[in-house]
């Protein structure tokens, strides 16, 4: 931004508006002070003159022109700032003025302003004065006045003080406005420059913070957090893309090999049919991997978040246990289902069922013959939160790997030869995150204990109340809203 642009900034415009307002109020204030001081002194001078005229008038009534003359002579002798003149026609009789001032300006009937000369020769000076003029009987005229030098000096001092104040106010207003605008602009420019850098591709840039904890710092902090989030998501996307590329390429390649083999193979028709069939199996595997990936992506972006409604967790889990129980028995594994009656969570039925199915499948896959898989729902006694857990008696997962298996496509070395895409647990993790639930993998000694802990129902309901668009209208939410929720 060019320096002149400072006048175009919103901050400066705001500062300028305040400056105008401030200048007007200063003007009003100073005007008032001027009126009350300078005006007052002038009025007081007039008042004194008027009083003196009145006093002299009384003397004149009592002692006539002779007495008046004596008084004028007396007063003229000791006057400093008072001016007197008594004349018959234009011939002066007494007083300290040499004659009627030639340059008098009549400001009001009987009132004049004029300049007179005080002192003699080298020491003389021209001074302003104000006086009342009174016509007496017999052609006599009386002038009673005041030297106005001091009053005028005070007036002009006040006036110049006022003008200076105004000028200083204006100056500091403009300078301050520019300074504040430049300050704000400099910090906004920092934010802008960082944004431009980021737009041109450097996602690692962050807006520097001043540490002043003001609103601009707040803004910078929030923007930085937003960038952090965006960068994380971008990294996630890139990782997903890499993983998809890597893990879909392998089966796609196998598929291609099989089809090609069937095409160029010299084998019997029987063999060709077999190759084609196994190609279809491969394709089905790919489709299911692809579907899982989509579902994980959707769960992670929260696309289904507004489909959450209050529902009975035990019922969902019970159905899944019911679905897998014969399969477990078939493998010589006991599948147990443990649950108190109703456990309310806020969730998406089909996604929860899917996550539960994945956990159970996973447990069944690793539990040896004669082992047991226990599926349970409950309320964590410590924090009143609904939980769902699957415990198996398989080999478990070494502590170091537990975080990792929740990532996409991670398959531990020992499971390389078992079927599966490696997406099962990451799908569970994604579904849990979508429900604001926490997934925890622990050692069941022996075996693995996977526990998903949901937010407490009260919180879930508060969340529903906070976004009443849809969930409150759904029948199941109504049902459980009417019932007291904890029936454990």
């Amino acid at each position, binding site marked *: 931004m060019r320096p002149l642009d400072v006048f175009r900034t919103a901050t400066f415009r705001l500062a300028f508006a305040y400056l105008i307002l401030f200048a007007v109020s200063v003007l009003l204030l100073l005007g008032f002070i001027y009126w009350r001081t300078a005006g007052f002194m002038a009025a007081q001078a007039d008042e004194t003159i008027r009083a003196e005229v009145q006093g002299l008038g009384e003397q004149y009534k009592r002692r006539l022109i002779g007495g008046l003359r004596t008084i004028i002579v007396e007063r003229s002798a000791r006057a400093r700032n008072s001016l007197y003149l008594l004349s018959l026609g234009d011939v002066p009789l007494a007083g300290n003025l040499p004659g009627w001032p030639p340059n008098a300006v009549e400001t009001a009937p009987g009132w004049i302003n004029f300049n007179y000369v005080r002192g003699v020769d080298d020491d003389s000076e021209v001074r302003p004065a104000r006086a009342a003029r009174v016509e007496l009987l017999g052609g006599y005229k009386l002038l009673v006045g005041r030297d106005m030098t001091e009053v005028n000096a005070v007036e002009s001092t006040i006036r110049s003080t006022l003008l200076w104040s105004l000028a200083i106010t204006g100056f500091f207003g403009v300078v301050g406005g520019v300074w504040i605008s430049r300050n704000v602009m400099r910090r906004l420019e920092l934010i802008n420059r960082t944004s431009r850098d980021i737009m041109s591709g450097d996602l690692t840039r962050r807006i520097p913070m001043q540490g002043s904890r003001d609103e601009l710092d707040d803004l910078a902090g929030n923007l930085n957090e937003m960038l952090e989030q965006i960068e994380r998501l971008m990294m996630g996307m890139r990782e997903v893309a890499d993983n998809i590329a890597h893990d879909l390429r392998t089966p796609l390649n196998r598929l291609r090999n099989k089809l090609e083999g069937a095409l160029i193979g010299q084998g019997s028709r029987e063999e060709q049919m077999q190759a084609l069939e196994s190609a*279809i199996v491969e394709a089905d595997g790919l489709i299911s991997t692809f*579907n899982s990936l989509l579902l994980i992506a959707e769960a992670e972006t929260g696309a289904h978040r507004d*489909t959450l409604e209050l529902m009975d967790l035990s019922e969902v889990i019970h159905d899944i246990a019911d679905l897998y129980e014969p399969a477990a028995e078939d493998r010589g594994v006991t599948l147990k289902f443990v649950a108190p009656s109703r456990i309310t969570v806020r969730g998406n039925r089909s996604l929860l*069922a899917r996550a539960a*199915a994945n956990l159970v*499948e996973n447990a069944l896959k690793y539990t040896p013959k004669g082992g047991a898989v226990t599926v349970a729902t409950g309320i964590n006694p410590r924090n009143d939160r609904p939980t769902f857990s699957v415990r198996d008696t398989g080999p478990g997962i070494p502590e170091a790997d537990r975080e990792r298996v929740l990532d996409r496509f991670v398959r531990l070395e020992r499971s390389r030869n078992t079927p599966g895409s490696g997406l099962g647990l990451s799908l569970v993790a994604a579904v849990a995150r979508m429900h604001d639930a926490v997934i925890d993998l622990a050692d069941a000694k022996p075996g693995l204990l996977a526990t998903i802990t949901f937010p407490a129902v009260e919180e879930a309901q508060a969340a529903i109340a906070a976004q009443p668009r849809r969930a409150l209208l759904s029948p199941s939410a109504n049902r459980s809203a009417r019932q007291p929720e904890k029936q454990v």
Partner: protein
Amino acid sequence: MRILVVEDDREAAAYLTRGLRESGHIVDHAGDGEDGLHLAMGGNYDVAVVDRMMPRLDGLSMVRRMRDEGSKTPVLFLSALGEVDDRVKGLRAGGDDYLAKPYAFSELLARIDALARRNGADTVVTRLGVGDLELDLLSRTATRGGQKIDLQPREFLLLEYLMRHAGQVVTRTMLLENVWEYHFDPQTNVIDVHISRLRSKIDKGFTEPLLHTVRGAGYSLRAAS
């Protein structure tokens, strides 16, 4: 039976048409929703297979218009949009079944079969019978040759579905969707195990098996005659 295929992708349509014709059906094809609607209202089809995303008139609108104009032809949506939400939209628009692409042809065939036979059979049934196997839907009991069979509630639902579609091929996915109401593919052979349990209850000790496995497709409940 007469089947209407409404699909804008040439290759997919050609594959579908050929497959259905080879399975012994009479097939008409429309390349977009407008033509599809026209044919559906004119011809007397047993089933319409409708894609969702098509030029001129999309599948949902087409089926909605069909229903508005009084057509009762069963509709199977065949769509690349396979989420639960999409499925619900399809059924709300008047579809009778929903199959996500990519699909297995045997799956499609089984579903078309199920839809065509359901047409017109809306009357309330209280008893179902296949051979000497009988199901009383009111008392929720099953008997074979007069002999009572003990069934778990879910097994009863499973058998009921199979009996309602007796003589047809029923796929694992159809069972999972209709008996358990799940719309995902378990990695484990859960359905097979349930079927073999059911089989041991209804076929064990009888000379004629009723519950057959159809290789590469699913299961079929039928009497030998």
